[in-house]
């Protein structure tokens, strides 16, 4: 009895495979386990092996052809067995999704003559005629836009929303020269943080975001963490703190933690893409910065929230942080005081921890873990000098924050801490 050779799912996420090379030809005898062909999956080139002994027949997928998983690409006939008419040629898979902005964006393009009409499938971009025209004109890849119309259709409003989100989330960071003598300043900003009118904007997940979310979550657990560490020179921050405390005198004291909280809040205001909640079917990009502050309590920890931290002065933050920490330790926090944070800071510096990774506080997309400030030799202007250095490690939820996004935020934070005056800009 003949055995069909299917395009197998050679990786967990594989939906189609491209036949790179047939190792056996029509009529060749094959043994179970032998490599029949090399197949390129979404990840790598893998071997498609024979599942039965016999003779390879009816090879229907040509080298270079891409076919969906599950299609029959050949049969293995028992020796001497006559097999029926050639299997129908497998249907070519739809063109790959990414990188072909033209497809789908051009409604009038006739389908290639060789392609039979295929039912709408997941890879087809659904968009209204108006949205297609707008996307074509503006060079927008409809694949990257989340549709909210019937059946997930991309509408005019979705395009407009996507455009706003793009402007909001991926605000470009001022380019920095590669080598600098002076501590670089972050991009100038007004002291009054400009905000849009709403507290937040819900941006539906694009297909790509959904896939990233699904795949990373499946591989790493409920929240796919990754970590970014940077070492910050705290000399200037320490000097500034000393001077501030001297001038404040009896009126209070500014701690390193206060400075870190303030800098984090300001950096978040500039990097909206890191100030976000992952919400299963959408990402909520917060326009407000509500900073969670991990506080160790007797039998665990709690994260009280400094609301609108980006709009508060250093002394306000300091006073509030102190009050909240005290309330946390005496278990007097009200629910409103420990919910709703948009990003968190965990500081174990006082425990002499050089560096650690913190666990993200969902639905937030990031947290920074702050180590202790240690004096160590560092190269300054080509000379070795003792410097107060501090390591900051950011945990990112990869469903929301990509490597470069997190790194860019962390760079701004580092710049602010290394030149605290920048916070006044």
């Amino acid at each position: 009895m003949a055995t069909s050779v299917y395009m197998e799912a050679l990786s967990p996420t594989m939906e189609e495979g491209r036949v790179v090379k047939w190792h056996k030809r029509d009529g060749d005898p094959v043994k179970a386990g032998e490599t029949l062909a090399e197949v390129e999956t979404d990840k790598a080139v893998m071997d498609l092996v024979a599942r039965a002994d016999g003779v390879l027949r009816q090879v229907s997928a040509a080298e270079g052809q891409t076919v969906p998983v599950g299609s029959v690409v050949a049969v293995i006939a028992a020796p001497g067995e006559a097999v029926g008419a050639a299997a129908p040629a497998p249907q070519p898979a739809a063109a790959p999704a990414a990188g072909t902005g033209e497809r789908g964006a051009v409604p009038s393009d006739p389908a290639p003559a060789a392609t039979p009409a295929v039912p709408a499938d997941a890879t087809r971009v659904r968009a209204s005629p108006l949205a297609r025209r707008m996307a074509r004109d503006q060079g927008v890849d409809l694949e990257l836009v989340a549709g909210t119309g019937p059946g997930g259709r991309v509408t005019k409003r979705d395009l407009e929303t996507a455009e706003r989100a793009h402007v909001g989330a991926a605000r470009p960071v001022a380019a920095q020269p590669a080598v600098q003598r002076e501590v670089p300043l972050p991009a100038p900003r007004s002291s009054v943080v400009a905000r849009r009118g709403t507290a937040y904007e819900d941006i539906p997940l694009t297909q790509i975001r959904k896939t990233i979310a699904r795949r990373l979550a499946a591989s790493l657990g409920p929240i796919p963490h990754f970590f970014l560490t940077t070492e910050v020179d705290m000399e200037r921050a320490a000097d500034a703190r000393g001077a501030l405390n001297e001038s404040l005198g009896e009126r209070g004291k500014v701690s390193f933690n206060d400075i870190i909280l303030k800098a984090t809040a300001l950096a978040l205001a500039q990097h909206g893409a890191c100030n976000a909640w992952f919400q299963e079917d959408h990402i909520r990009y917060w326009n407000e910065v509500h900073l969670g502050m991990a506080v160790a309590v007797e039998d665990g920890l709690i994260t009280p929230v400094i609301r609108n931290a980006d709009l508060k002065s250093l002394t306000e933050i300091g006073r509030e942080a102190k009050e909240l920490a005290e309330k946390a330790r005496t278990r007097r926090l009200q629910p409103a005081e420990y919910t709703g944070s948009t990003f968190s800071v965990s500081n174990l510096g006082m425990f002499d921890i050089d560096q650690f990774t913190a666990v993200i506080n969902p639905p937030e997309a990031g947290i920074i873990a702050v180590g202790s400030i240690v004096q160590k030799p560092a190269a300054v202007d080509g000379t070795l000098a003792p410097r107060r250095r501090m390591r900051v490690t950011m945990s990112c939820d990869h469903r929301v924050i990509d490597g470069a996004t997190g790194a860019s935020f962390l760079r701004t934070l580092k710049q602010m801490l290394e030149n605290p005056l920048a916070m006044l800009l």
Partner: protein
Amino acid sequence: MANQFDVIVLGGGPAGYVAAIRSAQLGMSTAVIEKEKLGGVCVNIGCIPTKALLHSAYIATLLREAKEFGVDAGAVKTDYGVAMQRSRRVSDQSSKGVEFLMKKNKITVAKGAGVLQPGRKVKVANDVYEAKKAVIIATGSRVKGLPQIGLEINKTTVISSDEALFLDKAPPSLAIIGAGAVGMEFADIFHAFGTKVTLIEALPRILPLEDAEAADTLAKSYKKRGIDVIAGAKVKKGTPGKDRVTLEVEANGATQTLDVAAALMAAGRAVNTEGIGLSECGIQVTERGFIKVDQALQTTAPGYYAIGDVAGPPMLAHKGSREGVCVSEHIAGKKPHPIKYDNVPSVTYCHPEVASIGLTEDQCKERKLDYVAGRFPFSANGRARGSGETEGFVKILRDKKYGEILGAHIVGAHASELIHELAVARENEYTVEEVELAIHAHPTMSEAVAEAALDSLGRVLHV
């Protein structure tokens, strides 16, 4: 508890009863509280009976012109009382239809005036109904008079549509104050029944919310028929007498005195928000008096929703019905598609009919949109010529860059039916090209829609 339901709807008009049906469809136990007849203003003293009377008016006009079509109906006699009786039967039938729908969907109907109470409760006389999930407020609106100029509705000489719909005889003369949809329709009806009609509008144009071109076409049509149309006119004072009303009307810098048998107030509606317990429940109203709602139509009090006229303009039955569907789905935990308030068709059923959707040409200009107006007159449409209904046109406002249908305006016979092709197009973001590409049957009035789309592309065929 007997009086406990998932959803309680206060008001059985087109918003409320549709919300009740959709709620019941979604498996929620539902009660509707209605103090008068099911179907509300729309079914009983609004949309439905006026359409019956307008059809009577249409027949009268048709028969008067029938000789030209080879049908001599002789001297046409009209009787408003008979037409009115027929319109009542139509309304009753529709109201009974709503009753049937309530039964069919196992919806409890409580008769009486409901008053909201905190805790998602509604008091009706001595009974208290409690909603486990939500209370939906759909109390609608009513006509209002202009007491500040002496025109308080007295139901004899100063009347509203409520009384006009129950008259036994058409008055010999009638001043209609307000030339929006209601005023236009009653002018059409009474004129056909032999009343000397004067239509007075404060704004510079009749049908002030419609496209200027549509309004002008109607003004011409009405004047040609012998209806006096005074736009940009201010009624300074009204003096109701025993069987007369004297009106002082100022227009074009001159004041004239009108002596009519009755005045019909058609200048706006007031929402029914008094005495239903809004403030007791913490439900706020807007500056304009509508109930304040968010995008999901939730009021400022959790568990209370508002739909229809009380939730804000446009005060149209079909807008209320859609809100009813959306709110019910929202309460049931579904994610209804948000309502596109800029895609609610607006129709005036006078002759010729006026129907529109989206922006007017003036609004396009105000917003500085780059648009092209495509037009097609019914005088160039074979079907319209065949039935002698060549008044009017189709106008489509097309965005120059992407072809988006910014607005569409139709004046003509069956405009109310023709507009929906453009409503579907706009809802699905079809551009003028998709409208034009769809093959339109010949000969139909609808061909004018495709031709207007073509005209906006500079490719009109039949002009």
